[in-house]
């Protein structure tokens, strides 16, 4: 993994986003003042995104995916480490630069049903970010709102501009959320579980839409999901997260065909393709549940559930990032 990071750095295009040793801990207090401990939601994350690539972050509920996304957007202050966008560390930006950054990075937040303000019509929802970012001309704002609606295939735009969120289906609402994320013409989009609340058939449609917008405009797309069965069609690279850390990363087919980390292997083994034989066999599932991020286990976070745990090693020290196959990184002692 380290080798590939250096390679990306020196390549002609360079990463659009680099994340180094990133930690986002939330302080947990009782009665408002008594410090109980820290929730280590993001706990030592490193990666690079190349301009124009689509990547997916996968992992179970509570493993820190949204916290990571929100830290990338500057909505959480990292406890340690840095986020470097187009060569500049977010921590060094002043207020005006920070605002400019938020215009460069579009955000599709988790939970589409809560994402749109119920009292605004679609026109107002789409005008709002333009107003905030200083587009004064109403005609210009309207033009861009229409273009964004066309982009997400809500056409003709007139049919949608004066609608309120409750008048739209879940899939249409999600398109409006995407249109809003696109309206400032960002270089990168971070989409947090953009489809998990939607029906399967609509899901595929929205993912295809995101992917085609991404390729048409050469955007960088980071999407967060816990659905591994869709990622191969909508991302080029996958990062697998467990308890606040990235445990494995590789190009999509490489990762799906040759998972290295026992956690990734367990995830893939638990996914069913529809087949009547499934009903007649027990699936292998690792015991237990993901650890508390307040007091994560020593060593590898997965070791208490791992069937290949090496006593004295995995339960002592966190594994280093290793590269058991070319371009395929994992943090697991099995590959030392």
């Amino acid at each position, binding site marked *: 993994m380290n080798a590939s990071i250096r390679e990306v750095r020196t390549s002609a295009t360079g990463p659009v986003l680099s994340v180094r040793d990133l930690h986002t801990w939330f302080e947990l207090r009782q009665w408002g003042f008594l410090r109980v401990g820290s929730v280590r939601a993001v706990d030592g994350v490193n990666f690079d995104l190349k301009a124009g690539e689509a990547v997916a972050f996968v992992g179970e509920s509570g493993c820190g995916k949204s916290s990571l996304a929100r830290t990338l957007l500057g909505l959480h202050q990292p406890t340690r480490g840095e986020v470097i966008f187009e060569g500049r560390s977010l921590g060094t930006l002043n207020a005006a630069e920070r605002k400019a950054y938020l215009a460069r990075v579009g955000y599709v937040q988790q939970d589409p049903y809560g994402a749109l303000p119920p009292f605004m019509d679609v026109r107002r929802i789409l005008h709002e970010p333009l107003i905030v970012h200083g587009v004064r001309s109403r005609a210009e704002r309207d033009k861009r709102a229409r273009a964004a609606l066309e982009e997400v295939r809500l056409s003709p735009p007139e049919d949608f501009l004066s609608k309120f969120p409750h008048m739209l289906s879940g899939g249409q609402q999600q398109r409006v959320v995407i249109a809003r994320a696109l309206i400032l013409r960002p270089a990168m989009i971070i989409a947090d579980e953009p489809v998990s609340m939607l029906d399967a058939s609509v899901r595929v449609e929205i993912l295809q839409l995101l992917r085609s917008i991404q390729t048409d405009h050469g955007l960088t797309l980071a999407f967060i999901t816990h659905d591994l069965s869709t990622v191969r069609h909508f991302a080029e690279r996958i990062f697998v997260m467990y308890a606040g850390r990235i445990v494995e990363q590789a190009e999509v087919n490489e990762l799906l065909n040759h998972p290295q980390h026992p956690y990734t292997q367990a995830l893939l083994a638990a*996914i069913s393709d529809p087949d009547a034989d499934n009903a007649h066999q027990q699936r292998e599932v690792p015991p237990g549940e993901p650890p508390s991020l307040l007091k994560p286990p020593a060593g590898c976070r997965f070791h208490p559930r791992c069937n290949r745990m090496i006593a004295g090693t995995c339960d002592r020290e966190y594994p280093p990032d290793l590269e058991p196959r070319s371009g395929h990184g994992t943090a697991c002692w099995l590959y030392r």
Partner: protein
Amino acid sequence: MAGEPLLRVEDLKLHYRSGRGVVRALDGVSFDVRRNEALVVLGESGCGKSTLAKALMRLLPRNIAHFSGRMLVDGVETMGHSEERFRREVRWVRISLVMQAAMNALNPVVRVGQQVAEPLRVHRGWSNRRALDRAAEVFALVGVSADFLQRYPFELSGGMRQRVVLAMALVTEPDLVIMDEPTSALDVLTQASIMNALKRIKQELGTSFILITHDVSTSSELAERVALMYAGQLVELADAKDFFREPAHPYSKLLMASVPRLHQEEKPVHIPGQPPNLLDPPEGCRFAERCPSRFGRCDRDPETFRIGERRTVRCWLHAEGTRT
């Protein structure tokens, strides 16, 4: 009573009154469930799946416009039962339900063991001790350690709370358990582990299941029979092996093609358009507007045709089959 299915439902309808008219949420549904059989009910959001669950349990909201059909349990017609008799003989006794999002509806101030034991105390007059012992047994069955009996819902993860509500549905040893989206909000590993528990329970206790979900892949972990709903009606009913391998109704075909598969090169397709409004569904086939195989006859409401022994399809394309 050999040969009688455990549950037989014929032409079941449940319509709601609403400010804008009558919502025909469940509009003439027929199927059987045999002993120790698992039927999966699939369909997209709003097609009437939860309404079906409510109708079977006769847990009806106030704004009912119409409720009719036949429902036979072990061959005994129950639609004519008074509420009192239905409660005494059917609901929670023969048939129980895990409601959609039930894991978020646990009583926050009562220990989960007490919540699971409650039906035994209330309906059977068991002592607290005896009911709690039984609750501990059911906890073991669904994969919750007995230590958790003393815990409050907020002390449990989502997966554990879902197992607790499952235990509540099983504690009275019903013949049939209806589960409405029991794992949709959970992670894949938790899902897989709960599906493992259900398979074990089915095998060990001989329980029958109706699993309601929009997740085709996960449904295959339990399904022996599949019923696909569209806009308040059943469009196809078949053995799981036939349905998953060779769906017959055009909607079934599109649905199966829209399911993303881990090891499949082709992209999943999406089904264009939207389901009809149940306030005013079309006269003819309800899927016609989105159907790639639509033809002249589809302006008329299709009959349900039987193909082979075990499959029925509500579609004119299959008019060579026998009428049901």
